[in-house]
């Protein structure tokens, strides 16, 4: 279990920083609510609806229903800030995982130890996925006590559903960045290529006929906001693709020579 301890040591400060930043971002929605409420005139609502038709990705369907607390929180947090910030967070945490072992020169030390390649790569993958999960859970469910303080009722069910549906998307993005990290010896190059790959994944969002294929659209959880259930079939497909990406990362990493 030494390798898990090592990965924990490497990620603990990122986890603490991640929780603090994400909780801050999430609480901003609570703090801004009274101000947004005063701003939301009928004209503004009409304008938002019109914008929605032209920019359906950046402004989700629920965004204009600002008068309802849960709709507002879900659309501004799960459907917007959380998935956008998570994309950046995933880039930060996943791209150096394998590439930095080479750029720091620690790969030789690591591989000379009797730790199997599968253990090395699994520890990196699982510890950081756990880190990601903790950041999402902490920053999302802090909204519950915050709602109580704001004297609003919090619809726990839709947030649980939203988070459950979003996770496979985060895992897919993480797996992709992890694979790119296995391909490069330099964290900066891995980061740049991952950013390009993330952008390419966003292209279907801009094409109406292919919008349903967008991983970002899936993470927004608009279907849940509309009162529909979690799309389990798509979740399974996304998780299967993530597993393939992980297996490919393992294959590439196991061929590395130091």
């Amino acid at each position, binding site marked *: *279990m*030494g*390798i898990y*301890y*090592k990965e924990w*040591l*490497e990620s603990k400060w990122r986890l603490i920083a991640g929780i603090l930043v994400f909780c801050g971002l999430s609480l901003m929605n609570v703090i801004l609510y009274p101000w947004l409420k005063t701003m939301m005139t009928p004209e503004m609502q009409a304008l938002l609806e019109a914008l929605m038709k032209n920019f359906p990705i950046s402004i989700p369907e629920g965004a204009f229903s600002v008068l309802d607390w849960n709709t507002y929180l879900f659309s501004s947090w799960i459907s917007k800030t959380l998935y956008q910030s998570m994309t950046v967070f995933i880039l930060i945490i996943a791209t150096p995982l394998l590439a930095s072992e080479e750029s*720091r*020169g*620690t790969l*030789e*030390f690591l*591989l*000379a*130890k*009797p*730790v*199997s*390649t599968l253990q090395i790569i699994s520890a990196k993958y699982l510890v950081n996925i756990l880190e990601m999960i903790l950041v999402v859970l902490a920053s999302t469910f802090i909204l519950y006590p915050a709602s109580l303080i704001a004297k609003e009722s919090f619809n726990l069910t839709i947030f649980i559903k939203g988070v459950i549906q979003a996770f496979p998307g985060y895992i897919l993005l993480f797996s992709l960045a992890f694979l790119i990290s296995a391909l490069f010896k330099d964290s900066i190059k891995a980061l740049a290529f991952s950013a390009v790959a993330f952008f390419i994944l966003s292209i279907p969002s801009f094409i109406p006929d292919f919008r349903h294929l967008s991983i970002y659209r899936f993470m927004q959880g608009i279907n849940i906001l509309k009162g529909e259930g979690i799309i389990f079939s798509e979740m399974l497909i996304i998780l299967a693709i993530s597993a393939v990406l992980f297996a490919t990362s393992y294959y590439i990493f*196991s061929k590395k*020579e*130091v």
Partner: protein
Amino acid sequence: MNTSVIELKSIFKSYGSFLALQNLNLKVDEGSIFGFLGPNGAGKTTTIKIILGLRKATEGEVFLWGEKNTRRGMKLLKRIGYVPENGSLYENFTPNQIVKFVKPYYPSWDVELEKGYFERFELPKNKKIGEFSLGMKRKLLLLLALSFKPDLLIMDEPTLGLDPLTRYKFLQLLTGEVAQGGLTVFLSSHTLGEVERICDTVAFIKKGKLLEVKLMEDLKKESQRIKVVFQKDVPQSALQIPGVEVLEGSGKHYLLAIKGNISHALEEISKFPIFVIEEQEISLEDIFVKKMEES
């Protein structure tokens, strides 16, 4: 009969069109301290990495304790302590943390031994490795490589960055461990003085080709050096005796290298009246330079 701890059979390693190792055949016996010498870029580090399974040989086989090692054999790595040349460690960790990470993988890890090395090397346990000097990092690598009582210790430039006192203590410790039995050491070094002091067998490598493997004792006997002061001037041409090489000198004073039968050579030299003759110990450095120039 000595058992081979390391056996390399016809190892070739190429990087594109560059041939880093060519037909390398080598055996390291149990309990020996084996010095692997060669100039920069000779293929020493590549050989070490192939032994460990960190790099794959293009052709050939590696056997450790008679067992084939293809790619990072876990069972074999548990028995090997390794001190790499670059010595990069996790800068944000403390020595205590790195020990906690590494220890579970070695069932034979000896906590008392670990404590002893911490004291002997005067290493702080809770200071970030990033704040360590190069010498302190080397000491920590040595501690990590020795605390589980390895059967084989592989070191690439082990004393790089160590101060003379620590280097002396370390070499003493190493010979002591080997004397107690069970440990085999394979090291590459540019510090020929220390190789000479502790190694019982030496191999020379140049441009990926193994030139020679010899016991240190035999290597020293192979060539001797004498300083001669003749009573009268002797021309250099007169000293062109088979097995005798003039290293330096002219007139009455000469420094000669004698290969093979020393008594025959001395007989020939003695034909000229000698004032003083004295034998000088030939160093490994002299042998190394000569071998590299000859090849």
